[in-house]
């Protein structure tokens, strides 16, 4: 469960998030939509404990983002927007170090790595250096790192960015397989992706939530709703 209450984030005079509140129930797949600079990534960075909010509060898996950040980080899987990876490491090495840094016992880590490799389709590149991977495979490595410890909450910042349509389908299928057991909050500006994958969408514009509902519940195409609410 994710609970956000009156969350505000400012960078100097710029207000990135302005008293935003919402709740994501367990098992929900929620899409955070918005034009570039709307505050989506800032929101996700606060929810992962990476950035502190300027005001308001947020709880993820019942842990406060400021006061219980360490516990919170144990329970989330996060794919950042830029998908930063250690290019000097091979895929298997990268997953092994992620498992170790997450404190997974070696016996559990071995199985978890094997499962993540299989789920993310990384079998053919496990020995390759990340520096030599295509963008699609790099994205899969980022996803594998995010799901490795079987987190109860997945936070994905533009998970299909840079992927070809087939790869996008694979990521969507992956999210679908996880929806029974996990809460997923993903940001995207691909509206068809949101309609297809998400139970609910939050449209964010200039740091405010301007729409909250199921993609079908708006009564008209999501694209029209998005354009109307985020114009100007």
């Amino acid at each position, binding site marked *: 469960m994710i609970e956000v209450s009156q969350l505000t984030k400012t960078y100097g005079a710029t207000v990135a998030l302005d008293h935003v509140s919402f709740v994501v129930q367990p098992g929900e797949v929620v899409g955070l939509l918005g034009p570039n600079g709307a505050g989506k990534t800032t929101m996700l960075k606060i929810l992962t404990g990476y950035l502190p909010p300027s005001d308001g509060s947020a709880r993820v898996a019942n842990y406060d983002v400021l006061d219980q950040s*360490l516990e919170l*980080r144990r329970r989330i899987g996060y794919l950042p927007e830029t998908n930063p990876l250690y290019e000097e490491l091979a895929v298997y090495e990268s997953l092994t170090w992620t498992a170790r840094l997450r*404190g997974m016992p070696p016996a559990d880590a071995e199985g978890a790595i094997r499962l993540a490799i299989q789920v993310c389709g990384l079998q053919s590149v496990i020995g390759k250096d990340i520096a030599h991977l295509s963008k699609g495979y790099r994205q899969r490595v980022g996803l594998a790192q995010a799901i490795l410890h079987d987190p109860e909450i997945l936070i994905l910042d533009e998970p299909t960015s840079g992927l070809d349509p087939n790869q996008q389908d694979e990521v969507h299928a992956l999210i679908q397989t996880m929806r029974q057991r996990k809460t997923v909050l993903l940001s995207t500006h691909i509206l068809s992706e949101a309609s297809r994958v998400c139970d609910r969408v939050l449209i964010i514009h200039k740091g405010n939530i301007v729409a909250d509902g199921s993609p079908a519940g708006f009564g008209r195409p999501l694209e029209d709703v998005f354009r109307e609410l985020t114009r100007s």
Partner: protein
Amino acid sequence: MKSVWTLARKELTILLNAPATYVISVVFMLITGWLFVSPLFQVNQSTLDTFFRPLPLIFTFLVPALTMRSFSEEFKSGTIEYLSTLPLEDHEIVLGKYVAAMGLIGLLVTFTLVYPLVLLLVGRPDPGQLFGVYVSILGLASFFTAIGLCASAVTRNQVVAFILGFFICFTFFLLSRVADFMPGFLAGFVRGLSVDAHFDALARGVLDTRDVLYWVTGTAFFLAAALSVMQSKKWR
């Protein structure tokens, strides 16, 4: 503490995967080897002095070169975001990087043990002094590593991190020379801050707690500074 070791091993793996590490290490071994061997063969003198006396100056280049990428590369590539959203405390990240850099420098220093071993074969070196020399080297390495990490946390550009780290280390190296031109009461204070005074005292085999305290507090100060800089950059 387990997280610190795990992170240090990962950092060490990355350092050992980088070709620059080997270039820097080879250059270090060539220079120290030449410093040790030249008096041995040219003037038939078996001494470690020519090897360890220039070490503070050599370390002003070597240590920032080995630490320059530690934080700057994390900020540049964005991996600091990955690292910071793992269940690790910020101080564990700083300590992990410190332990990794010290591990690599410790490995290089271990290679130099061949010099006292050669001395044991051809002469009668003082074991107390040998011990003091290596405690000095580790103290100096620890202090400069903390400075290098702090410099690396300041910028996302590795070259700038190297120059800044070198500048701070070189300042501490120069202080004892500058002190000669200062009035008496100030000269003592400035000399006390310089690395030379503490390095030479320990290297003579005189184990003084003030020298050990200098390395420990200097290291702690710059590691704390690295932590503050990292947090302020991350949260900006």
